[in-house]
């Protein structure tokens, strides 16, 4: 093949200094670029009486992934961006007895909420798996929600957005 005459146009990069005002201005701009805010992980702690049973429940029924279970009284799980810590009461820092003698316990009314795509299908699967429900029928305004409990009795709310659901605006 004959050489392409246009190969003579090859233009190797020769360093060229731009105007110093430009060079200094660009450097200042580069130095003022901020690092993005450090992301933190939303984290919640639940107390459970049987750690293995609880880990299995969150993995199998609610789609959590086990990250750590370093000892028999503590586990760390993730579901998307949510980090769930499971602690056995009284046994470990995090589950330890307070100075006034009170010991953490599972249960209560506060709970995590998990948004699902199709509440009816999710409920059907959970019913089949024998999960304990605290209320039977989905209810709610702007969302449909039900309340279930983990094996230690901690409430968990599942919800599906409905008409008028408010999504974060900023």
């Amino acid at each position, binding site marked *: 093949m004959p050489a392409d005459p246009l190969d003579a146009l090859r233009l190797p990069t020769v360093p060229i*200094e731009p105007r110093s005002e430009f060079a200094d201005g660009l450097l200042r*701009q580069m130095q003022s670029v901020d690092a993005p805010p450090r992301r933190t992980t939303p984290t919640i702690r639940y107390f459970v009486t049987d750690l293995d049973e609880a880990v299995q429940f969150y993995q199998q029924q609610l789609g959590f992934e086990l990250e750590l279970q370093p000892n028999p009284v503590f586990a760390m799980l993730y579901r998307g961006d949510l980090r769930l810590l499971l602690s056995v009461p009284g046994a470990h820092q995090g589950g330890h007895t307070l100075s006034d003698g009170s010991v953490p316990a599972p249960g209560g009314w506060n709970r995590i909420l998990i948004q699902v795509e199709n509440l009816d299908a999710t409920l059907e699967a959970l019913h089949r798996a024998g999960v304990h429900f605290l209320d039977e029928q989905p209810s709610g305004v702007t969302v449909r929600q039900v309340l279930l409990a983990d094996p230690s009795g901690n409430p968990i709310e599942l919800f599906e957005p409905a008409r008028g659901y408010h999504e974060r605006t900023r």
Partner: protein
Amino acid sequence: MRDEPAPSDPVVAIYATALPRVYGYLLPRCGSTSLAEDLTSETFLAAVKASRQGNLTEVSVAWLVGVARHKLVDHWRGQEREQRSLAATEPLVDNIEDPWPEWLDSEAAYAALARLPVPQRAALTLRYLDGLPVAEVADHLGRSVHATETLLVRSKAALRREYGEESRHAR
């Protein structure tokens, strides 16, 4: 909460060495100081942002020149979108192409290149000034290899005509 000043950024660290290289790549291909400065800024600011987000593993002068090439191609593609109606009415190039002279006056050829419409100028710059293989030119321009080969043939014919004009004026 830690809020220390960022430790020396790897892009800032090689700025003094990289700046004349990046600018030296862009200026002869842009043909205008202001465009070369704009694209140089875009190149370094994009690199710093990527670095601050922890998205960079290795920063080198060659990598920054590659970023500059992407910025230049993006600029051409933006221009091409604006000028699409113009390009569509461009007359078809006839198949008869004068042979190139033995000795190519490269200054005249660069001047002729600067007058070609954007897609032709982009294809020829990447293929010949940068020396990229056709497949890489096609990647940059977002065209198939076949379409790029066709574009190169037409662009070379157009350049030949412009070059003929250029040397006539020069005489």
